[in-house]
């Protein structure tokens, strides 16, 4: 009796088994975690090959088929998200090996791996799901694991931030669940296919609103972003990288996915989404300008960037949605990679110089050069300078908005870009200024192997811009929005 | 016939419950309240259980009802004891007037 296993089920189960093993055998957690990530990446690669060869693939779990059972489905967009998660996850794991290596971090090390692998289980589950209740459960897996990672350091600030995150997370999930209830009331089924083409009745509009607000809370869309800066800024560096680079993307992905199937009630709603995004871009930018600590600045920049992704989503109105999601997807990928790199680099800088107060970045004779360089590279992608992936995303955003005559979104994007230049240049100035240091500046201090992972991520964020065309054609596989490119 | 007996028993039980509740609300201090609650509810429960047993279809069901009655009675007695004990140790006042 040979077991026939699909790569889809493996990309959810391998991390699950890994988490179990890492929890049961805490001493071998790092080793298990690593092996798991390698195997998961293998499963995702296998899945990517299948999707490339055959287009979108599905798997009716239990053989029942939707709507009674739950189907898994993988198309270009899902696989792109899975790949993002695998690649970023793998590199962050390498960084975590170094950043959690001290004897005083034994406990963090022991819990980092099971929590992170559970998180991976949940995220991969979200990207393959086609059922809104299943999404709810997966989101909760993510939420609990993510909160665990947030408070890994055990500091009071981290715990307070983690508790606020927990409240927001539960609250968002419950709004989502209420929305699921209304969908069931109206349609009697919960699979994506059942949503397609449904008439926008009152119950469905309520469902949509509840689900959207719930997800906006989870992904920290302005003005529901209040929990994010503290949570992401106070977590340990690898956890911050995972939270900011990957976790918020899961909820964003669900928004994209639902927009594909939900009957969208109106153009006005899309405008509202765009306005919230614009608010995030401006407010996040202003707060980042005022932030006193490096990691807080980076966290506020996440708020702004999430807003930008929503602007991309709304950039060309209802008619343009069949194209706009691609701009949003590109920005999601770009932000995921670059922000992970940036948080890791910020963590390295903090480790090396012992603090992350922006004003005093230049008051130290130690210069973690490579980490600073990595930070700058990541910033290039986040600002959206060529040829980074962030630039390509921004280009698509503005191109679509311009072609559709939505100049206000072009203006918002430009304002956001200028703000990001302004706040990141505060950091650059701290890196490059050295007249206040009394001690002679040593050469190349702080070059360490630990910089390899963030640097690789940052270089990917820049370099993937050159591969934007194949990336774009890949995420179109299975025509997620039902419109042929 | 069985239905009538059951109805009478359940109604009586309900009256005891209501009486217990009134006691809970009206009596002046915690010990009096406990007194009303445990006594009246214990009897009310027994009466209702008995009434329901008359309505039960199978002997197995009757057996289960008896078990339920037993454990609920034991639990409520224990609870009453615990509450009283806690109240006395933490010095809750008894109203004298």
């Amino acid at each position, binding site marked *: 009796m040979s077991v026939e296993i699909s790569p889809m089920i493996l990309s959810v189960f391998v991390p699950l088994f890994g988490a179990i093993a890492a929890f049961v055998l805490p001493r071998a957690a790092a080793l298990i975690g690593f092996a798991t990530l390698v195997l998961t990446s293998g499963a995702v690669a296998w899945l990517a090959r299948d999707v490339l060869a055959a287009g979108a693939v599905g798997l009716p779990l239990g053989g029942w088929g939707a709507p009674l059972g739950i189907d898994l489905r993988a198309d270009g967009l899902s696989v792109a998200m899975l790949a993002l998660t695998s690649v970023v996850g793998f590199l962050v794991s390498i960084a975590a090996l170094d950043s959690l290596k001290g004897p005083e971090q034994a406990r963090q090390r022991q819990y980092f791996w099971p929590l992170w692998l559970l998180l991976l289980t949940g995220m991969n589950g979200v990207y393959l799901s086609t059922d809104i209740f299943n999404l709810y459960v997966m989101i909760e897996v993510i939420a609990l694991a993510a909160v665990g990672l947030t408070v890994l350091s055990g500091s009071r600030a981290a715990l307070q931030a983690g508790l606020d995150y927990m409240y927001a997370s539960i609250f968002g999930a419950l709004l989502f669940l209420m929305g699921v209830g209304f969908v069931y009331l109206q349609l009697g*089924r919960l699979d994506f296919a059942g949503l397609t083409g449904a008439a926008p009745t009152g119950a469905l509009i309520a469902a949509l609103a509840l689900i959207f607000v719930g997800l906006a809370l989870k992904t920290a869309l302005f003005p529901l972003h209040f929990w994010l800066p503290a949570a992401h800024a106070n977590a340990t560096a690898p956890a911050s990288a995972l939270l900011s680079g990957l976790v918020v993307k899961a909820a964003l992905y669900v928004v994209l996915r639902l927009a594909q199937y939900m009957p969208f009630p109106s153009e006005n709603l899309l405008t509202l989404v765009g306005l919230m995004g614009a608010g995030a871009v401006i407010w996040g930018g202003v707060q980042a300008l005022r932030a006193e600590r490096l990691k807080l600045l980076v966290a506020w920049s996440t708020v702004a960037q999430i807003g930008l992704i929503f602007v991309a989503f709304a950039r060309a109105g209802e008619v343009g949605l069949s194209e706009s999601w691609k701009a949003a997807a590109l920005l999601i990928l770009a932000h995921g990679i670059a922000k992970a790199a940036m948080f890791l680099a910020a963590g390295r800088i903090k480790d090396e110089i012992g603090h992350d107060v922006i004003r005093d970045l230049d008051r130290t004779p130690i210069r973690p050069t490579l980490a600073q360089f990595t930070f700058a590279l990541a910033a290039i992608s986040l600002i959206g300078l060529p040829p980074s992936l962030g630039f390509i995303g921004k280009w698509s955003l503005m191109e679509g908005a311009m072609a559709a005559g939505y100049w206000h979104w072009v203006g918002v994007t430009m304002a956001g870009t200028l703000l990001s230049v302004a706040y990141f240049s505060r950091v650059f100035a701290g890196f490059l200024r050295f007249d206040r240091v009394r001690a002679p500046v040593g050469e190349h201090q702080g070059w360490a192997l630990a910089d390899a992972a963030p640097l690789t991520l940052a270089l990917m964020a820049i370099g993937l811009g050159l591969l934007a065309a194949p990336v774009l054609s890949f995420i179109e596989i299975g025509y997620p929005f039902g419109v042929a490119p | 016939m069985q239905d009538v007996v059951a109805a009478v028993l359940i109604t009586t039980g309900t009256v005891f419950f209501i009486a217990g509740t009134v006691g809970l609300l009206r009596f002046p201090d915690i010990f009096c309240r406990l007194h009303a609650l445990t006594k009246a509810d214990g009897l009310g429960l027994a009466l209702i259980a008995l009434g329901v047993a008359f309505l039960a279809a199978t002997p197995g069901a009757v057996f289960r009802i008896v078990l339920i009655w037993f454990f609920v009675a034991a639990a409520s007695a224990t609870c009453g004891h615990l509450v009283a004990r806690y109240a006395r140790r933490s010095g809750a006042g008894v109203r004298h007037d």
Partner: protein
Amino acid sequence: MTDPLVIFDLLLALAIVALAAASLSVRDLFSMIVLFIIFGLLSALAWVRLSAPDVALAEAAIGTGVTGALLLKTLHHLRFASGTLGQKAAYGVTPVAPVPMAVIMTNAVFCGLITLGLVVAFLGAPAAGPGFDPLVAEAMPQSGVEHPVTGVLLNFRSYDTLMEVVVLLAAVVAVWQIERGLSEAPAPAMGEVWQGFARLALPAIVVVGTYLLWVGAEAPGGAFQGGAVLAAVGLLLLLTRAYVPQPAHRGIARGAFVLGTAAFALVALLVASGGRVAFEYPLDHAKTLILLIEGMVTISIAVTLAALFHGREPVALAKGDRNDT
């Protein structure tokens, strides 16, 4: 309006809403929790009225019982930690400032509007509208069990159920990560009457829990309800200090936490052969496999819920240790 039960329904509904509002507005936190427990039990009753006994059982056992116990334990812990054991509302080191009435009113108006919108949406939705019932009815013979809810939980949507167990696992991992140590608030002295009751009740609870698990295949009950009832045993043992978790027990505990998830996932994976996909149990063995899974999951749920109640990893801490060691 002819059905007298409608009056009962209306009264029950009113009581539920009133209790919900009361539990949020009452000042004393202990009263808040007690009101919440009553609210939960009445909700369970309402769900029985809606012909959902499984849900009612789960809500009573887990949603109200375990949650209530967790809340009470936490309140006790907080009051103990801040030395406010005897006081009514406060427990914090820095007392929580009362929320300004204006804020509450604004929120209330805001939420009222949302609720109103939801009411309109609810009234507009089709009553007893479309559902899965025909599909379930058609598929039940192939499910391996007779009770539809169990069929849904452990066969049709078993992927969800597996992930639900994973959520529970994630919770216990997170809780262990957050809290550690051995000593805490002293055990409440309960007296002999209590001891006697516990001696009587514990075996009975074990029997009831196992019965609930067993009966789940054809009647209301199942792994979650059974697990929750069994967890009550753990709660009682922990409360009476009959069992005190020790660092040496962690290995076994970890094994018990993951048992359900691991068994469930393994079965789900291994059945995928001979043209079947994951989670597709062969018809001949469906009932056995489901019972096996349920058994393992019940153990995990019971132990996990008890561990969540205990709320900390049993680690021997050095004096003055508060962060990472």
